[in-house]
Every structure is written in C-alpha cells, then in structure tokens.
C-alpha cells in the first residue's frame, strides 16, 4: 500500500510546533522564514519607487519584517495591560534577556498564590479547634465545668467545620485551567478579608482570654462557634462573588477572527476583561473552525497582483507630499479597469464544482467499501473463527478502496495536512466498532471541524496574548474592544451591552376571539 497522505512542503515546519515557550520561541523564528520568503519573492516583482522618508504605504517588506519581530516576541510576553500594540514593539530588544526570567516568574507567581491560599485555609480551619482546645491545655483546673451545653456546642462546631470543609473543597479545590496575566481581584479580596477577620479574632482571643485566663468555658466555646458561623457566611460571600455574580448575562460579545472573518456571538455576565478573554478562548476551541493557512493563499496572491500592476515615478524629488501621492495611486487603482473580479468569480465557481465532484466520488467509494464489512453475531463467531477480524484489521482491509478518493478530496479542500493516514485508519476502526454509517464516518472529513477535533500539533494557537487598552482586571463595559493575539492570527472581541428591555402586558379575554365573514359576492342581473 503506497503512502496515501503527503504534506505540502511549505508547512512541514508546523508539525514541530510545541507549547513550551523556549522551544516555540526558536521554532517561531524558523517558521517565519519559509512563508515570508515565499511571499517576499512574489512582492519583489512589483517595484514601487516612493519618497523614502515618508510612511511606506506599499512597503510590504519593511512592515512585515517588523511584524515578524513583533509576533516572535509577542508569544512569550507575560502581561500586557494598559498598553497599545505599538508599545510592545518598542520593548522587543529589552525582552530578549527577560524571557527566561519571565516564564519562570509566572510559574512562581501562580504557585505562590496557591501556597498562600492553602496556608491561610489551613490556619482558618484549625483556629476554632485551637480556640476550644487551648484553655483545656493551659488552665484546665481553673475552668468552670460546662456540661450538656458545651457538648451540644462541640457537636455543632464539628458539623459546621465539616460543612465548611466540604464547601471549600467543592468551590476552591479545582485544577487551575488557565494562566491569567493579572491576579484575580475577587479572590485576592476574599483572602484579605479572611485574613483580617481571623487576625482580629485571634487578637481578641489573645488579649481577653489567654492573657486574663478567662474561666468561663462556655463563653469561650460560644466564641469559637461564632467564628465558625462567620466563616460560613464568608463562604457564602465567596460563592456569590466568584460564581453567582457572572451567571446573569449582561453583555454580548462578538468575536471575529482576523484572517477569515469568521465570527461568533457569546453572552457574558459581569466579568473582568481577562476572565472574559478566558471564556472567549474556551469557546473558540469548540466553536470556530480550525485555522487553515492553506486557505488564505488565494487572497494573498490576489493582493500581490494588485500591487504588481501600478508603478509610480517620482519626478519632483524628495520632499514631495507622500500622502497626496499615495492617494493618487489608490484613485488610479480604482479607476483602472481590471478583470480580477471576473477571475475570482470563475475561480470560485470552478472550485465549487470540483469539490462537489470529488465529494460525490468519495461518498460512493466509502459506501461501497462499507458494504464489504459485516458484523458477526455471537453465534456466528464460533462458526468461522478463521475469517474473524478485529476492528483495526477490518479498517485496514477496506481502507485501500477509499484511500485514493479520500486523498483527492482532502487535497482539493486543502485539508490534507490535518489528517494523517494513521488518524484516518483509527477513525475508520472507531466507526466500524460503533456501527456508524459511511456518512457518519465522512462527517469528519467533509467539513472542517473545530480546533479541538484535531491533533495538538496542528492547532497554530496555543499561546495567547491579551492586548487591551484598559486594565485587564477592570470589568466589561459597553464598547470595550480587546484583541487576543496568537502567532498567526488574532481574535478581535467587541463588547456590547444587552439593552434594557421594557416589557409590558396586554390581557386578551379568550372569549373575545370572534370572527366575521367578509365576502365580495357578484350577482348577475
């Protein structure tokens, strides 16, 4: 069986792309060389002579080189707040040496936060127990005897602590699913509140009870009970602040991918910008079709052709009005009669036709292949042991008959680098095991699916940078725009407030539904 799947040479570099920052850093630099050179050679054919000091409107090479540097350093940036994109590029050089320390620093920050929270939690949990036990340990003989009442209070303290433990486990003990640039404001606030609270309780306890060796044991136990009650209320506050407040939808965000304009809308509640960015990214992996750079080459070649058509000769020497010149060029381009729209139309129609033809051939081939397989029932399994195959072998047996049609289809729709032969065989044996029809098997290949469906190596989007004009810990407001950048593309997010809805009521009596016949009769006289 010949190797059915091959990958385009230009994009072979992507298969080594990994999430680790240092390695990606290096790979990112290599990656930029190959496509850039391809496009660069094309645009070098267009010669535009312009006044050098002015802003190069058509100076693709210069801007792209700068952009290449931006993207390269952008992927390892740790925190970007309150700055625009422009300032990132200025900090490029300084960041080279800081990269290592930054990546280490980020991990430290996260673990530091976790440790502080854990220590505080432990302290808080042990405090009531300490309040109850310390008098017993230190001045047991002087304590007033305290019978049933104290025992009842011990039981209530024990159960409340148990409830608190379960609640804290449910709410806080979760795998951190993301690395956010800035600290989570509400969590920090709650930690500070708990710390102050427990500190003040200890202060009071230390001064009034330990120093004076209070003998009223019941009062001490009730003090401990009041602490546990207050902790439960703080837990309630934590639930409301951290979980409940953002549930009610207040904003609609529109997310648009910069490369192909694919857009989605999501509903969010009151969140900070960084948490909203997190929600958007989680939904991105599920809702947006996978980013395919092969689909963008057509528009790039058209753009290059536009540039190739015009030539500008500067006769007046330097110091000329550059903006006026560029405006004149754009006007000339608009007036020029070119048939690129015609080309685009016929090219697209042709492509559609080709895709449909290949798709029809593919469906027929797969349907035929599936008819050769039959599932053996339990009784039949004993009858013909020699011919039995497990799903993997069955898949390998029918794969050659559909391999060519599938390969051609994937090539036409430019998806061939997303599916290796091994992955197709695996999917085929999975479908055979689960009694899927040919159409169900093909569902994966006919249309590009969300990013999660594919191998991690093909994602092109694992390190994200949040670019925002406002502080990322500030809340969402109507009209806020922020950008989530990764190496190859960016997601532009636009926030809009859900309008205030005024709903009024109208009562209709069910008996009021009455009708009349409206005729237009014609009588001959």
């Amino acid at each position: 069986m010949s190797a059915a799947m091959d990958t385009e040479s230009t994009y072979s570099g992507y298969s080594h792309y990994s999430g680790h920052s240092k390695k990606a850093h290096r790979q990112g630099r290599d990656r930029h060389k190959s496509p850039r050179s391809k496009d660069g050679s094309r645009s070098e054919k267009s010669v535009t002579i312009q006044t050098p000091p002015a802003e190069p409107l058509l100076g693709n090479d210069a801007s792209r080189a700068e952009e290449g540097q931006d993207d390269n350093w952008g992927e390892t940036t740790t925190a970007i707040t309150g700055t625009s994109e422009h300032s990132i590029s200025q900090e490029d050089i300084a960041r080279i040496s800081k990269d290592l320390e930054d990546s280490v620093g980020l991990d430290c920050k996260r673990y530091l936060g976790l440790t502080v929270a854990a220590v505080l939690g432990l302290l808080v949990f042990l405090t009531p127990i300490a309040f109850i036990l310390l008098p017993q340990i230190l001045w047991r003989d002087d304590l007033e005897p305290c019978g049933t009442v104290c025992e009842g209070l011990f039981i209530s303290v024990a159960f409340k602590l148990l409830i608190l433990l379960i609640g804290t486990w449910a709410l806080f003990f979760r795998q951190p699913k993301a690395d956010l640039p800035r600290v989570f404001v509400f969590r920090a606030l709650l930690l500070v509140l708990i710390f102050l609270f427990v500190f003040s309780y200890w202060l009071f306890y230390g001064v009034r009870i330990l120093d004076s060796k209070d003998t009223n044991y019941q009062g001490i136990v009730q003090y401990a009970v009041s602490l546990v009650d207050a902790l439960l209320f703080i837990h309630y506050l934590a639930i409301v602040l951290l979980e409940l407040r953002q549930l009610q939808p207040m904003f609609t965000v529109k997310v648009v991918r910069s490369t192909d304009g694919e857009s989605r809308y999501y509903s969010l509640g009151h969140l900070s910008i960084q948490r909203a960015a997190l929600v958007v990214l989680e939904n991105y992996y599920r809702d947006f079709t996978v980013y395919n750079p092969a689909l963008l080459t057509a528009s790039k070649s058209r753009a290059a052709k536009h540039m190739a058509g015009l030539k500008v000769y500067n006769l007046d020497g330097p110091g000329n009005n550059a903006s006026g010149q560029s405006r004149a060029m754009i006007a000339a381009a608009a007036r020029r009669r070119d048939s690129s729209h015609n080309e685009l139309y016929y090219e697209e129609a042709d492509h559609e036709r080709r895709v449909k033809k290949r798709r029809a051939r593919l469906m027929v081939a797969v349907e035929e292949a599936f008819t050769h397989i039959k599932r053996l029932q339990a009784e039949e399994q004993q009858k013909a042991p020699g011919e039995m195959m497990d799903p993997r072998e069955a898949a390998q047996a029918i794969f050659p008959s559909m391999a060519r049609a599938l390969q051609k289809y994937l090539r036409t729709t430019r998806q061939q680098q997303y599916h290796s032969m091994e992955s197709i065989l695996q999917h085929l044996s999975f479908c055979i095991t689960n009694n899927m029809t040919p159409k169900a098997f093909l569902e994966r290949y006919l249309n590009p699916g969300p990013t999660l469906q594919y191998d991690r190596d093909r994602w092109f989007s694992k390190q994200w940078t949040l670019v925002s004009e406002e502080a990322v810990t500030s809340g969402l407001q109507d009209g806020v725009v922020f950008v989530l950048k990764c190496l190859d593309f960016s997601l532009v997010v636009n926030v809009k407030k859900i309008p205030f809805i005024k709903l009024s009521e109208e009562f209709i009596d069910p008996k009021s539904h009455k009708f009349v016949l409206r005729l237009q009769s014609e009588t001959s006289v």
Partner: protein
Amino acid sequence: SCLISFSFQQRIEIHKLRQGDNLILGFSIGGGIDQDPTQNPFSEDKTDKGIYVTRVTEGGPAEVAGLQIGDKIMQVNGWDMTMVTHDQARKRLTKRNEEVVRLLVTRQSLQKAVQQSMMS
C-alpha cells in the same frame, strides 16, 4: 406628458330583455355596504363600498346601452345606490314591473394631458 385621472358621470338607459319569465339586464354587480371593499378590483379608493359593474354580457342590453365594466352605479331610477347592501342593490335593479332602468354611473378615465391638448 403626465397622467390625469378624473371621473365623469353618465346617464345610461337600459331596456330590459325578456328571457322566459325573467327580465335581464346583461351585467353583474359587486360591492355593497355589507361586503369587503378591499377586494374590489375596480374601485380607486379601497374603502369605497359602492356598487360596481363587474361584468358586462356581450351583446346584452347593458352593453348596447353603453354600460362598461368598472362603472360605479350611483343611482337607479332615482334611488341612491351608494349606501345599500348587495341584496338591496340587486332588488332595485330587478324590479319585476320595470322594463327600463335609468342609471347614473361614474366612470374613471385615464387620459394623457398631451393627448387631450392635442385633441382640443
């Protein structure tokens, strides 16, 4: 050139034709205050509930007398027909003892101003 729409009134005298036991006029009416005026194809104002001529039999007494399709019948023998029900209109037109009915009809005509100025 522009289009002018105006209506003029005409008096039409129809001599009924005897067919067996009946006296027929040779046209059909539509409309009435109990009917739906929006379904009337001949009226200019769709709230007009008057009686309109919806069909004229070829060669019949009405056509001979000059009645046209789309005419609005204003009066029949002096009786007003602008605020009557469909059935009342029918009755007024088919009185057994009348052999001649005199109608006052309104007709809409569209004429180009140029044509008119050329004619005059």
